[in-house]
């Protein structure tokens, strides 16, 4: 879907896509799950409709973040 909103914001210039690991501009990104530090993680918007990519990549990301969280708890 194309977004046509233009307004002044305090956006940083780029976020990192967890799927292709490339920097992406916020107007081409979408929010997904939270990372191990409970911070918002992002992916390129166009990946959303590629379910063969979108689903397994986010699922792997989430399980990895879960392990990081568990390790941090154990060592604390």
């Amino acid at each position: 879907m194309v977004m046509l909103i233009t307004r002044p914001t305090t956006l940083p210039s780029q976020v990192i896509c967890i799927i292709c690991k490339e920097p992406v501009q916020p107007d081409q990104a979408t929010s997904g799950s939270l990372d191990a530090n409970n911070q918002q993680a992002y992916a390129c918007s166009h990946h959303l409709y590629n379910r063969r990519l979108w689903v397994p990549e986010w699922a792997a990301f989430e399980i990895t973040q879960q392990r990081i969280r568990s390790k941090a708890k154990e060592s604390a």
Partner: protein
Amino acid sequence: MILHLDNGRWYIDVRGPGSSDQHSLDLSLHLPRRLTAGHVVIVAENPRVFLSVIRKRWMRLLYDVEIQRSSTLDPLRRESLQHEVERMRTCTFSAKAPPDAPVGTQIFVVKPDWLTDLPEHMTLYIATSLTTQQIVQAMKRLRRGGLIVIYGNWTADYEILLHQTYQ
């Protein structure tokens, strides 16, 4: 499109105009990503119809994930897809206002005039037009760091979101 990032209380995604079919497809693909964060609230004009569409899409997606899981040999991929399947299978939806929704409901699909009894939630999908007053009501129970996803055009009524995000 993301409107606001780490400097605000909430994150806002605006998905722009599209048909209700596009919105339900987008939402059903995005929804599993928000299950681990906490409760999800979807505001729709007709919750029963919307939930029925989402459920159908959900079952199709679940089937697709199961196929992906059975066709992979990579251990991490297999484990994470198994986890995804379990989460999707056990996810509970309700098209009732929270006091009448079954205990343990994770996803609430509500009408714009049912926003007074929302549980604390981490994700708010707005799939219909809301007035400023209704947005304020819905955001009262949105936890810090939560995500608001807006489907449709940005209207003057949504300006309150920007104001409250930085309050």
